[in-house]
């Protein structure tokens, strides 16, 4: 790579609505939404597993849709509404997916879990999955190295009302 510059980019002000709260931050254009959440807003519930869009641990909901926050620059989401795992429980009560994950033991180490749950919330909103096979297929962007997949499918089925 040619040494084109030794200068780091200037920070630019953006607004994000994160878990219902408006947050203003000055951010460099090269900062991903994932790093903005974890390092700048201290919302470490969203996980970094690969930083390359390969594992899904960083999945959050942006304007209701599930995305890999590691493949998204924060400045691209100026003004967007973002829901992270920290925003799913309401008034201390677990979101039905969070409760179902506990009930079905749908995790072990817990590191992929916030991404799995956000992805499942996105999946339910999409309304595309009708059976276990479709859940498996449409949740395959979220890796779980502990191998909790059958329990993850069972938890999602429970919330879909099909268990």
């Amino acid at each position: 790579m040619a040494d084109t510059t030794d200068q780091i980019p200037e920070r630019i002000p953006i607004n994000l609505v994160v878990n219902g709260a408006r947050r203003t931050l000055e951010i460099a254009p090269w900062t991903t939404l994932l790093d903005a959440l974890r390092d700048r807003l201290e919302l470490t519930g969203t996980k970094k597993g690969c930083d390359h869009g390969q594992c899904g641990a960083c999945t959050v909901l942006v304007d209701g849709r599930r995305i890999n926050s590691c493949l998204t620059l924060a400045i691209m989401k100026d003004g967007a509404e973002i829901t992270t795992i920290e925003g799913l429980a309401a008034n201390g009560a677990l979101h039905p997916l969070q409760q179902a994950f506990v009930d079905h033991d749908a995790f072990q180490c817990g590191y992929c879990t916030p991404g799995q749950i956000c992805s499942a919330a996105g999946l339910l909103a999409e309304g595309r999955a009708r059976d276990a096979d479709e859940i498996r297929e449409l949740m395959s962007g979220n890796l779980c190295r502990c191998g909790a997949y059958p329990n993850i499918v069972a938890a999602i089925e429970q919330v879909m009302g099909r268990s």
Partner: protein
Amino acid sequence: MNAYVGTPTSRVDGRAKVTGAAKYAGEFAADLLLHGFVVAATIPRGRIARLDTSKALKVKGVVDVLTHAHRPPLAEQDEAWKDEVAPEQGSPFRPLYDNSVKFNGQPIALVVAEDWETAKFAATRIRVEYEEEAFATDLESERTKAAKVDQPHKPRGDASAALTRAAVHHEADYVIPSEHHNPMELYATTAVWDGNGKLTVYDKTQGVQNVQKFLCSVFGRKPNEIRVISPYVGGAFGSGLRPQHQVVLATLGALALKRSVRVVLTRHQMYGLGYRPMTIEHVALGANRDGTLEAVMHEAIAVTSRFENFSRNDTGWGEQLYKSPNSRLSHKLVHLDVATPCDMRAPGAASGVCALECAMDELAVALKLDPIELRLRCYSDRDQSEDLPYTSKQLRACYARGAEAFGWSRRAPGPRSMRDGKELVGWGMATGVWEALQMPVAVRIVLTANGHAEVSCAASDIGTGTYTIVAQVAADALGLPIENISVRLADSSLPQAPVEGGSWMAASSAHAVLGAAEEIRQELVRRVKAMPASPLGGVDAPDIILVDGTVTKAGDRSRAVSIADIMRHSKLERIEKEKLNQFEEEKSYARNTHSAVFAEVKVDEQLGVIRVTRVVSAVAAGRILNTKTGRSQVMGSVVWGIGMALHEETLMDHRFGRIMNANIAEYHIPVNADVHDIDVIFVDEPDDRINRLGVKGLGEIGIVGVPAAIANAVYHATGKRIRRFPITLDKLLD
């Protein structure tokens, strides 16, 4: 007494994990935190001739660049770098120690900056020139250089002669590739500068005390100067047994700059650490026509680095499973210009038993015997290596229960004899075996007057459920509801524990809890007997139990005093007891867990695509402390077995000595769509010899045998015997 032990109790740390509240090593905040980014070597062997950091240092926000030529002092003796899991023979790798390059991906510089992006950018400004040296990274081309390592297995009889004489014999090489653990959490450390030279190090490790002792030794610090904490670990599977590169680098940075430093490796950089070593497993079996064995020969040839001898027990498992009057086992190492391998889930057994169980399947075909029938005909009730009986061995029940649940009796024996539309159907099975180990662990219990107890220990919970089983055992032993138990783990300042590995932590931590709880009980008994007109006055101490928040005469609930009353009367706010539990070294029994694994595959005849549609794993592992988390653990292990059979392979370009697929897209692991029905059966296995609770541990047994069961199913489906793992579609279509 057992309100919780043996029940499907939900994880006590579940809420923290589903809400994002659980904090992992790279997530702890610190004032004025600096971020380190690692620069890694791009050659496998040689010397750093020039390392130019000047351009990186000019980047605004960069604080320093540490290299072998610019760093605080590091220990000079090998012994100082040997952590408790290090191989006995060798010279452990030392990050940023000198200008030598020992493997591709070795860390050679650490850029430290005010934020992570700046450090990452500045790392691209570092220029390195190498003096390259000739290297070798290919096990197969270097196979002839293999050197034998000491193994405890003594030869029995004359296996070579018996093999020659045998009526039926099978002999083949099975090749297991190198595999990387790839836990979901990146290897990460946050070293927090507490001032006055003291550090609190949040690290992704399976053993906080191992890392703490290692850091003190490497950096010449006193024990009270470094504390290591790791409350949650995002998967490890063996990768966190030895101190990882980034914990040395973060500590180095913090000590150099007197500021807090976080270092998180990239997924790519994680491939510069330990892995399951590629192994060529040579198995030869000789049998009589009736299916009894005459000879077992098993030789493993495995990769290790140039600088450490890493080896595990790949070949000894046949001694435990199959009766044979003659056996010869050996393990050889080939030293290559690569990082040292390390333990990865069921190290040794996952690879060795895979080969053995594929070979047994091939022998069954040669003998025209059902694979289960062959295993029953040479079933061993003794561990032949030491000629010992087992504390318990319900493997026969595993075969029976597993076969029944799977529907094995409906299997058509011939290959290519079962079909579902355009897919060939194959049913295969294999045996699994692992050790039931137990280690000294200490636990502290603080019982407070409000009927709550805090149970603490330095042991880790790497997702295995240690928090939950410790809470269950403590709740039962103290007679309290589980909600009243809080568990603190994985802080080096807490009572002693070894690394969490080898499946030993369940039994070890559970009995340590029992030991400390017994101390609490005895203290309460002394106190209650000292009370005036105590309802337990004349009762013998052993007849007094803790139940429902009271101290009670066993069998007579009318004679009870609440813990609160005892504490009030004794003017105590808390009772604190700490106890180190050590198991008696009873050498007259072998201790093992066993399993029988049954797999169904469906193979697209035209495309060669393989799906594992069903797995039944019947496990005999003593008492299962938690049937919910225990089932999950075995299920996850089965998923690992699917990966080992069909997906996982670290691919090396031997022209450059560099890993080609060092990411989690091209290094394939099972995804949700790859995993279908998994049925876990826990076979009843009472065991009053192994330990008081009869616990054996579950971390490894679930993977052992799974790859072979799948490979055997692929043979049954297609008639093709693939002995080079993973079994990918190109091999089937060849």
